[in-house]
């Protein structure tokens, strides 16, 4: 097991003497206390795992450059023998990927903005202001954190139909503008800020809105960044609700379009499907690689992706 290694050389040596095979025992006996011997194994296992995790993405990328003939070839060639951009061209000519791309972006940006504004406002009130009903509101919001999307989508669809918002941007956006997760995250963060800032500002005569907007909110940039990224991502990848609400091609988001092509008449056109997958995955990947610290902090802060 990989647990046999610890950073402290002394510990690792002791552990090795009574636990591991003859090779390690010899090392311990000679008193060679360097980097624990098991470390190369840890690296080997982790790198092996990494290959399994990243491999499918590479295969997707390679597949997107293969012509149809090569995709059906048995056995497949490792590298594309006649690389082509035709699959990507099809996304633009035969299909309407730019539209889906814009739809996904508009919906994700709107939902992100909404959550940043509304969740930080309520989160601040819950963390720093005193008012009757505070606990009840927080309990209510927290209680819906684990309500699955399948529970609400049927009545939500009835509601959105009656509001005339089926197959519209508002229909795609409104149900997600105020999510419980953001309130939880912002409240946690606001609680870590000192009350004295607020008291001092009140003594200086600042109004409550100004205290929030000009003093407290600017201190929340790390939490806002985390919330913004996680919300954008969740919205970009969201599937069930857009599948229900977006009923014609001009409102499809990227995942809906890809899924519908994947199960429809293009279901075996893997060149196209791989190019489409690259189009969904690549922007998120780039954002993630640049901002990965915020993701990790968000996960560590709340444990929810």
């Amino acid at each position, binding site marked *: 097991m990989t647990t046999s290694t610890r950073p402290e050389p002394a510990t690792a040596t002791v552990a090795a003497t009574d636990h591991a095979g003859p090779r390690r025992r010899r090392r311990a006996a000679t008193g060679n206390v360097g980097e624990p011997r098991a470390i190369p194994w840890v690296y080997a296992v982790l790198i092996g795992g990494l290959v399994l*995790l990243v491999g499918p993405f590479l295969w997707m990328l390679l597949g997107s450059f293969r012509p149809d003939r090569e995709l059906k070839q048995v056995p497949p060639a490792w590298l594309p023998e006649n690389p082509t951009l035709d699959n990507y061209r099809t996304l633009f000519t035969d299909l309407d990927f730019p539209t889906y791309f814009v739809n996904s972006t508009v919906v994700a940006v709107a939902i992100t903005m909404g959550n940043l504004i509304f969740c930080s406002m309520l989160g601040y*009130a819950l963390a720093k202001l005193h008012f009757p009903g505070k606990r009840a509101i927080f309990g209510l919001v927290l209680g819906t954190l684990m309500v699955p999307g*399948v529970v609400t*989508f049927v009545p939500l669809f009835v509601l959105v139909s009656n509001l005339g918002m089926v197959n519209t941007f508002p229909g795609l956006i409104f149900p997600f503008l105020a999510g419980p997760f953001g309130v939880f995250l912002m409240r946690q963060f606001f609680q870590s800020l000192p009350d004295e800032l607020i008291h001092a500002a009140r003594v200086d005569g600042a109004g409550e809105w100004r205290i929030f907007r000009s003093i407290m909110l600017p201190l929340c940039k790390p939490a806002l960044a985390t919330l913004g990224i996680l919300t954008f991502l969740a919205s970009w990848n969201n599937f069930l609700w857009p599948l229900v609400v977006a009923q014609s091609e001009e409102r499809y988001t990227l995942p809906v379009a890809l899924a519908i092509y994947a199960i429809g008449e293009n279901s075996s056109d893997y060149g196209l499907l*791989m190019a489409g*997958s690259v189009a969904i995955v690549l922007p998120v990947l780039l954002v993630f690689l640049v901002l990965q610290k915020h993701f*990790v902090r968000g996960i560590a802060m709340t444990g929810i992706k």
Partner: protein
Amino acid sequence: MAAVTAGSPSGPSTSRRSPDRGRRREVVAAYLFALPFLALFLVFTIGPVIASFLMSFTDLRSADVRSPLAVGLIGLENYSKLLSDETFHKAAFNTGYFVVIGVPLTMGLALAVAVALDSGITRMRTFFRVGYYLPVVTSIVAVAVVWRFLLQPDSGIVNTLLGYVGIDGPSWLRSTTWAMPSLIVMSAWRNMGSLVIIFLAGLQVVPKEMHEAAAIDGAGAWARFRRITLPMMRPTLLFGGVVTMIGYLQFFEEPFVMTRGGPLDSTLSTAYYTYNQFGFGNYSYAAAMAYVLFVVIALVTALQFKLLGSKD
């Protein structure tokens, strides 16, 4: 809400105000801060949660969408129909299968990776962390499409690699035996990254001194893992387990894209069947099904907290 009319919190404030007046201003401001979120939240979240429950006792169908209040009450009929609906039983069984195998598999892999990352390696730590987290940020739909490509019977890379070691791989997604395990492995692959990060944070609370002391007393690595690391990580493992299970109980995109619930409904999940019933126009039946899933999620979560949370 009465507070709305009581004036804007951004209005000019007097520097000499009584404590009483300050308190009232604070309350008014708090309600105004809460108002936009709560309005949206009540309409689009709380409302539907309640409506879904009420709806499950009616005979609402897609034709009644414009007049949802004019439907007939049928009591528990939808729920009794569930009891005799064999497709629902199949879907519930499949969901159970997915969760019972998938959650421990995902957690086990994630724990192994987290422990490896925490075992004193210094180089490429960030690199590994980012790499293992990568699938989590990608769209499940894209992942499912890519995996269907990997799992193709003849030209797929998985069967090609298996062929090199002399194994004649099955037609994974068209086999009633192999379709579900394929989805489970794919889900473990996609979701382990977020657990790795949660577990890594959990490992930091295990004091190194305890390991050192135990090692001096002659405890081997496996014994220390069993007796020190695992008990200390109980809250983290519990949390990770609950979060993963809540997600897995709702699995939908994977079979939707990869198998369409087949072959012979062998990968049809409860959430997928709910979606299908909605598609057939059976709204109230879908709502009843969704509520059953919701109650199961709540019960299993509570049970997990009871079993793992208070065992000290």
